[in-house]
């Protein structure tokens, strides 16, 4: 019974995905929806095959801008998060600024980025960076700020400096928060790069979809969506895997380490 239900749990994501596509296909055929409203999955798949070279090139471009922006966000977010979590002074000084900055819709920044850097890869990378940076900062800072006061007392009583406490307790402790935030950040990074590509680029999936839309090539638009979903899932899975590898101790309930 339990082995059976375990297998069902394993199969569930696949069954749901296949089910979704089946219903989509069925609905498209049954209601005879025109291709420029909702192309059936088979039509979208045909479009992927037909336009593969262009799709492949643009997918790589989007993946490139996204991961580059994401990498910048990881470095910057980790650095700023440690700084903010380090001292209450820096925290109280920077926090309102960061909240305000995060509240700005990033799409509103793209025109400014275009003025500064022109149309192309750089605005996409920077938008991905700007949008995915905040959750990393917040998570790292949270991990540092929530050190148990008793732990800090024990170490301070032994003569520990702030640096010791950060290195021995704070930073290892914030790692699960950090790696957890990577999953959110990579997803947001795709949002950022695609936004920028639709507004200000001449390559990338966002650009390709916009171009396809203007030619009423709706199957190609959907092909772009599918590719984005695939890239998103793959990168998310990579981040989840990294998280498991790096902070297995924080997932003890699921028998990760024993």
């Amino acid at each position: 019974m339990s082995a059976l239900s375990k297998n069902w749990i394993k199969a569930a994501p696949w069954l749901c995905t296949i089910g979704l596509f089946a219903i989509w296909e069925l609905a498209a055929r049954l209601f005879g929806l025109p291709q420029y409203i909702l192309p059936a999955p088979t039509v979208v798949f045909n479009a992927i095959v037909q336009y593969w070279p262009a799709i492949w090139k643009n997918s790589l471009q989007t993946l490139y801008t996204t991961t580059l922006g994401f990498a910048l966000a990881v470095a910057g977010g980790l650095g700023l998060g440690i700084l903010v979590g380090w001292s209450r002074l820096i925290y109280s000084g920077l926090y309102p600024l960061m909240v305000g900055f995060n509240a700005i819709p990033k799409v509103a920044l793209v025109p400014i980025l275009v003025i500064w850097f022109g149309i192309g890869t750089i605005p996409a990378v920077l938008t991905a960076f700007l949008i995915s940076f905040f959750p990393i900062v917040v998570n790292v800072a949270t991990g540092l700020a929530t050190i148990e006061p008793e732990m800090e007392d024990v170490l301070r009583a032994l003569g520990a400096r702030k640096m010791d406490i950060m290195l021995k307790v704070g930073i290892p402790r914030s790692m699960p928060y950090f790696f957890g935030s990577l999953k959110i950040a990579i997803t947001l990074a795709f949002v950022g790069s695609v936004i920028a590509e639709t507004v200000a680029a001449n390559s990338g999936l966002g650009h390709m979809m916009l171009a396809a839309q203007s030619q009423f090539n709706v199957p190609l638009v959907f092909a772009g969506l599918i590719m984005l979903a695939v890239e998103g899932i793959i990168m998310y899975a990579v981040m989840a895997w990294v998280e498991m590898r790096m902070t297995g101790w924080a997932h003890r309930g699921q028998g990760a380490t024993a």
Partner: protein
Amino acid sequence: MKNLVTIDNVDMRYGGADGTLAVEGLTLHVEKGEFAAVVGPSGCGKSTLMKLVTGLHIPQKGVVTVAEERVTKPVSIVGMAFQNPTMLPWRTTLDNILLPLEVVEKHRGRLRMNRAEYVAKAEKLLETVGLKGFGSKFPWQLSGGMQQRANLCRALIHEPDLLMLDEPFGALDSFTREELWCVIRDLHFERKVTIVLVTHDLREAVFLADRIFVMSSRPGRVIEERIVPFERPRDLEIMYQKEFNDIVHELRGSIADARKAA
């Protein structure tokens, strides 16, 4: 005997001039090698006393001295353990116990080169508290009582002269608590370490301590000092003797008065 800890007419106020006055006119002495207990109602400043002695807080008024030196910064000849064991979950029990050595000035430089020596010391300690062979386990693989035993090892690894315990057994069930009373009794006997135990359990205080300080409600100060005359080593059985219960009863009366006075 010489005093290891003296607190002389100390006032400690949190949060600026009109903040909480936690202790006022606090005076007490603990002799070297002695086992002292501090009891008092909740919020009376017992943890504050711990922090004053370890140098985590510096009082606004009065003098705290440890080993004949005035306390003006953290004192690393002290080991501390709290109710919450705060083991780091990413370190094994052994590595948790070695943590203080990575911090204390005297040991941090030697640790890398002399690791085997320190590991042997930690394993000896683990054996003393009844955790032989558990060094490679992670803290979350240990029960609450076992974690508290490991916590005691961590407090003792740098061979402190003074061990400060802040309600270390508060979160444990009564059987585990009695076991740990015996552990701490034996540690005190074997290592000749001076111990200050903060507790709100009067039986625990009377069973373990040579001298008990009763504190008033906030602002806390010592309102009674009681010598516990029982011979050492003490057996858990003494808790069922009349003399034992008389002392517990008397202390209970003092604390009840202290609470009423507030």
